[in-house]
């Protein structure tokens, strides 16, 4: 197993470097000059000023040279300097990453727990009203855009009922500490995490339900039933365990998509994570910051995929690690 993990990490680093190179060129294909954006209204009309900015940030150098400088930096764990925010990229990402991890991991947990729970119930009571209700519930959240769910949530829980805060990570100016601070953050987290989680919950519900119904029809389930095992044991030990494999695969794939959803969720709820940092960097053509966020997100996807493979092995020990 150790050699498997080591190999995967090595491959991951190579993939990451390939991603850096690809992203480097892709971003530069987008129209829009970072020096002009940086210069602002008055500065952009001044040719000398824009030229100075280009020189200052090395944007006047040939592309291969810029790439070489950037990759050299990444290899030595230096993600460069943000033109726009005038601060090291690693520092900017470091400030925002914890908030995104908190949001995405909570949303991930909510979506998996609720998805598997609802899917199991729907499969267990297939064809009943409960099954239909769960399916419709899941479909609604799958079909609705994340920003719409977010706005409706704000309208209902913030404006109308005044139960939950509509924006931010914590109550600004309250200066809470310890448990009170944790509760405060949790209160702010509920709506964004649910908004993001419910979308993915819908997928897992549908997947779990379909997969369980399929496994239920297999011979080994009939054998288990013939052996006289209770229905609960069959569902838990035999059906669910086997039915979870595609859900785990999907969850691994979704680890990257979650970040995409976080961009929208973080924007609507003013959640101070890297999703928003990425969005701002894109609008400002802040190349280094954008590349930095991509590198971190890609690394996260690779790590999630590795974890998925390990979980796969835990769920079904018959799966061997290819070395």
């Amino acid at each position, binding site marked *: 197993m150790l050699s498997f993990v080591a190999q995967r990490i090595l491959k991951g680093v190579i993939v990451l470097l390939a991603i850096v190179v690809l992203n480097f060129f892709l971003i530069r294909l*987008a*129209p*829009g*000059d*970072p020096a*002009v*954006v940086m*210069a*602002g*209204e*008055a*500065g*952009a*009309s*001044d*040719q000398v*000023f*824009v030229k100075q900015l280009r020189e*200052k940030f090395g944007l006047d150098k040939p592309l291969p040279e810029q790439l070489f400088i950037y990759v050299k930096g990444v290899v030595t764990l230096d993600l460069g300097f943000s033109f*726009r*925010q*005038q*601060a090291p990229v690693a520092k*900017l990402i470091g*400030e*925002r990453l914890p*908030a995104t991890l908190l949001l995405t991991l909570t949303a991930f947990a909510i979506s998996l727990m609720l998805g598997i729970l609802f899917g199991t119930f729907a499969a267990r009571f297939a064809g009943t009203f409960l099954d239909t209700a769960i399916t419709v519930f899941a479909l609604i959240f799958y079909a609705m855009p994340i920003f719409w769910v977010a*706005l409706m949530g*704000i*309208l209902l829980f*913030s*404006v109308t009922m*005044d139960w939950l*805060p*509509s*924006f*931010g*990570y*914590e109550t*600004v*100016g309250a200066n809470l500490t310890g448990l009170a601070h944790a509760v405060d953050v949790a209160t702010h987290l509920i709506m964004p995490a649910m908004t993001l989680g419910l979308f993915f919950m819908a997928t897992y519900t549908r997947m779990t339900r379909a997969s369980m119904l399929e496994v239920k029809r297999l011979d080994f389930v009939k054998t288990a039933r013939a052996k006289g095992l209770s229905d609960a044991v069959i569902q838990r030990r035999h059906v669910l365990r086997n039915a979870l494999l595609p859900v785990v695969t999907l969850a691994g794939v979704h680890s990257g998509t979650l970040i995409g959803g976080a961009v929208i969720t973080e*924007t*609507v*709820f*003013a*959640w*101070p*994570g890297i999703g*928003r*940092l990425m*969005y*701002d960097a894109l*609008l*400002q*053509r802040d190349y280094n910051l954008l590349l930095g966020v991509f590198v971190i997100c890609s690394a996260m996807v690779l790590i999630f995929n590795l974890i998925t493979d390990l979980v796969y092995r835990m769920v079904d020990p018959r799966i061997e690690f290819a070395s």
Partner: protein
Amino acid sequence: MPKRVLLGLLLACGLTAPALAQEPKTGGVINAVIQPEPPGLMLAMVQNGPTQMVSGNIFEGLLRYSPKLEPQPQLAESWSVSEDAKTYTFKLRKGVTWHDGKPFTAADVLFSVEMLKQTHARARNNLAQVDKVEAPDDYTVVFTLKQPFGPFLGIFEVGSMPMVPKHLYEGTDFKTNPYNNAPVGTGPFMFKEWQKGSFIRLVKNPNYYEKGKPYIDEIYWQIIPDAAARSVAYETGKVDVLPGGSVENFDVPRLSKLKDTCVTGAGWEFFSPLAWLWLNNRQGPLADKRVRQAVMYAIDRDFAKDVIWNGLGKVATGPSASTIKYYTDDVKKYPYDPAKAKALLKEAGYKGEKIRLLPLAYGETWQRWGEAVKQNLQDVGINIETIATDVAGGNQKIGDWDYDIAFTYLYQYGDPALGVGRNYVSSAIAKGQVFNNVEGYSNPEIDKLFADGAVATPDTKRKEIYEKAQKILVEDVPVAWMLELQFPTIMRCKVKNLITTGIGVNDGFKDAWLDK
């Protein structure tokens, strides 16, 4: 009561609120929205709108400007101009200290001028007329100009020429100076904390030189990226002030009607944002003056003002906003007249060639405006194709002259020499750059008028020159002027005296107080 009338009344109420009659109370916290998050707070290094709004509390300029754009004392307590209009002597206020306790002196002014020439594009342009700056003593600064420069007394507000602490910046790499992230100024509020993505916190400067000010203890600038979420934050009482442009314009009437809410359109006199359509004069049908005039007649600008901008703002008459110096409305008029537009197009021989329109990617209001203009132009037979871009992409297209019609709005900075001429003189044609003469208009007479207007004395002479320039430009229609925009500031009525000068919220909250 129609919405517009109600809003008008509210605006009038805000503009004439008798706050001055009351004795200011001290204490309290103001929560205001800042959008988007500023890239930095060091005003000498970064000059975008959000930076100015927050940092106008931390830094100060030598002068402030009244809503009528008359200079007022700030760090300079008085000034005088020589008879030949080439020497400006400023007497600095004594007893002013930086937030770290060091005294503010003429050496700081001299240093700021030199630094700003390197880091601040607008300041450099404004200072181009300066031959030398001297400090005969610690509290006197003398600017000697190469030639008289009419708008010179208008370049000293905090956003255009912020004072920088020499003792913290001299000899350092400006780009990486650690004080960029914890700015030190002379202003009424001191930088305390910035949680990126969440908020910026400023606290009262206890040693501020104007005794008793500021009245407020703290300001929290809340960073909320989504426009709808910003409206909700105000609606649910989490923020007290929505500076102009914080919410979509169509939300303004609804928010204005909320309990204890005051609205004012004041505080934009210095910037006077003017919206227009860049018209590419170089190529295609728009190279013909008659087609450009047809565009002016074809667009229903009253509709745009009343429906898209909720009755806010004013229909523009030409290149100068009515709030800046030397404005005249004695120019050719372009009322909404589709028949006249069609006749002009016919006369010009327009054959339905495709014309590309770039709306401004600044949110829903601008998208809707783009659609309305497209409809207006199609109604008179112009074949319009909308090109969707983001801001950076749009700027590149405009700068590369790869467009036919494009939306924009620009600031005027109180004087035609500072904010108007750059868009029409032929020396400002430079491919790859935006916000200059990207339409490619070239008229030697206009070039001369703007060149003369900047250096003419006295003011009556300048007035004559700029009035003539406005008349010529309005006849030639190098761009299609649309609206003088108004970005209303929405706030709780308990916030008093928030806006007292021509730069509004950007001038800091030193006079503001809370009627608790």
